[in-house]
């Protein structure tokens, strides 16, 4: 079927006018289904293992890799601890309460620190002339591998300054890790902040403090919220820094890592725990989006 058919004598063969050549139709539909296929494949690779893990967490024999024999036993054991019951293959000494509380505490402190620091930096950066280089400097830690950064901070404080590691060093490490992300989230909002609004506020009689509270903070609020959210989530899931800075403290991810590496009988509980953490993270993200980014009506 030649292209010239398109123009020649439309009245005689009207059906030709609306239909492209067969080959092109085929290649178009082929390429679009191929890209759709790749898209679904990627989604599958991301979500299937997570779904699989959730399903296994309510299965009786998760280590076989096949679901079935539905039960909430692992959840029960996780919280109400356990001791190995008679006739059960798994269970054992599993106590997540301390690591969970420590991780939540760390995450809350990191979150608040990220909010305050990114507000301070984010409200000043757009006003100064060297904002580009400064922002790059603040964001550089993103490119340093966590394990390297963790080790260097550890060596500096422990070996260099002879500080004793502890909760403070975990907080510091988590802040160092999370702050660049928090600042980035803040800058999305802060870079769009119209500095002229501050002039307008002054002009109407606002002192520096009043215009900060009544104009700058409310407008930057989504950025502050996003910074806190990133601070919380990144701290809660952080592992490489914690390994170095923990000094005997055990965070939840660290606990998970240790347990899953150990050849003991509590592994099935990890399925349950991971499921809970995932659901909690999704829930938190959902709340954050609803509260922080919704347009006030």
């Amino acid at each position, binding site marked *: 079927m030649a292209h010239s058919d398109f123009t020649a004598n439309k009245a005689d063969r009207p059906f030709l006018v609306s239909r492209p050549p067969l080959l092109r139709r085929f290649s178009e539909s082929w390429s679009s289904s191929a890209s759709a296929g790749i898209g679904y494949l990627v989604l599958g690779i991301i979500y299937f293992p997570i779904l699989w893990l959730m399903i296994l967490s309510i299965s009786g024999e998760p280590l076989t890799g096949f679901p079935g024999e539905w039960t909430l036993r692992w959840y029960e054991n996780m919280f109400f601890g356990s001791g190995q019951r008679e006739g059960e293959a798994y269970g054992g000494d599993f106590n997540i309460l301390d690591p969970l509380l420590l991780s939540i505490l760390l995450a809350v402190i990191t979150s608040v620190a990220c909010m305050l620091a990114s507000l301070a930096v984010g409200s000043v950066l757009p006003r100064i002339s060297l904002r580009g280089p400064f922002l790059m400097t603040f964001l550089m830690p993103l490119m340093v591998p966590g394990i390297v950064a963790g080790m260097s901070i550890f060596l500096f404080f422990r070996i260099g300054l002879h500080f004793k590691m502890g909760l403070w060093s975990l907080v510091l490490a988590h802040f160092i890790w999370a702050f660049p992300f928090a600042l980035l989230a803040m800058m999305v909002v802060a870079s769009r902040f*119209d500095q*002229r*609004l501050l*002039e*307008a*506020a*002054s*002009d*109407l*009689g*606002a*002192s520096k403090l*009043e215009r900060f509270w*009544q*104009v700058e903070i*409310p*407008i930057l609020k989504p950025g502050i919220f996003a910074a806190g959210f990133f601070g919380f989530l990144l701290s809660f899931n952080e592992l490489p820094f914690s390994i170095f800075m923990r000094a005997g403290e055990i965070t939840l991810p660290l606990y998970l890592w240790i347990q899953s590496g150990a050849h003991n009988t509590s592994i099935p509980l990890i399925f349950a725990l991971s499921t809970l953490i995932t659901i909690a993270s999704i829930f938190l993200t959902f709340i954050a989006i609803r509260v922080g980014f919704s347009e*006030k*009506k």
Partner: protein
Amino acid sequence: MTETKAKGSDGAPILEVVDTTHRFGEVVALDNVSVTARRGEFLTLLGESGSGKTTLLRIVAGLERPTLVGRISIDGDDVTHTPANKRNCTTVFQHYALFPHMSVGQNIEYGLRLRGESKGARRKSAERALDMVRLTGLYDRRVHQLSGGQRQRVALARAIVTEPAILLLDEPLGALDEKLRVDMQVELKDLHERLGITFIYVTHSQEEALTMSDRIILMQRGEIIQEGPPTDLFDRPVNQFVADFMGVENLLEGTLEAVSEGLARVRIGEHFLTGIWSGAEVSAEGSPVCLAVRAERVRLSNTGGDGQDDGINRLPCSSGVTIYKGKYVDRTLDTDIGQIKARIWDRDADLVDLASLWWRQDECAVTQMAAGGG
């Protein structure tokens, strides 16, 4: 307000800016400028971008600290070193600068909230201000739901609700379309009369300045070139720059022959023309001058002739390009001293077989060349 009136009775100017210089690095934005404004005056700062008019306004508002300053006083109070939030004046910004996180009502009330007024009183004043700018009933709207013209009115309401001694307007109509701009000019003028507040208005549009002002200050490169009522700037430009800026179509360069009884005789090529001397001080004979005549003053004739008789300047001419403008016709006429534009409002006055053009001597101005040749 009662206090303001009491202060006003001594006739002191409501604004005094004395010997103000401002530099941005090497650039001199304001060069030793002094300005005063009478109580209740509509004063316009007119000039091109970069003339220093906005800088002067920002210095009055307190948003810019001048490099050198003699004194700034507003309503009798010395505010030379007073920050912006303590000055008794408010600004309507070109970009409106409405707070996006507040409703229309909250925006308008913001100044009153800072002054500690009660919620009820605030609301009442805000509603009244909304009525005044013809936005009745929009109290609860969000700012992003408003059109450009409405935002402009909200900015205006926000600025007048605190009853400042001076209202500063920084090209407030610059972002509006033509039709709305013309309507707003009338409304602003009306608002000025109703409120009795002193308006200081910055614009680059000579048309806006002429329409609204009691007095115009024309600025160029950080200096005041001419100030006076609109008719002065329109009909009596002190130099060629002013004439050009005020839209005079025909600027004829020549040499000054003589000045007597306010009339200046100018030699342009082989012709002698006469006009009213409007330069600041009378130039020496033989110095270069500019004769400025508006296109609508130029009339056509089918009788030939040359020279001056009965208070008339006459030049032989031949027809050039004609442009139809709807309400009028613009004709470019060729003379032996260059092209002259004539604006014909009356169809019957338009001639096909024209031989000369003429205008009255008292309807044209002879003025100095622009300082620095600009």
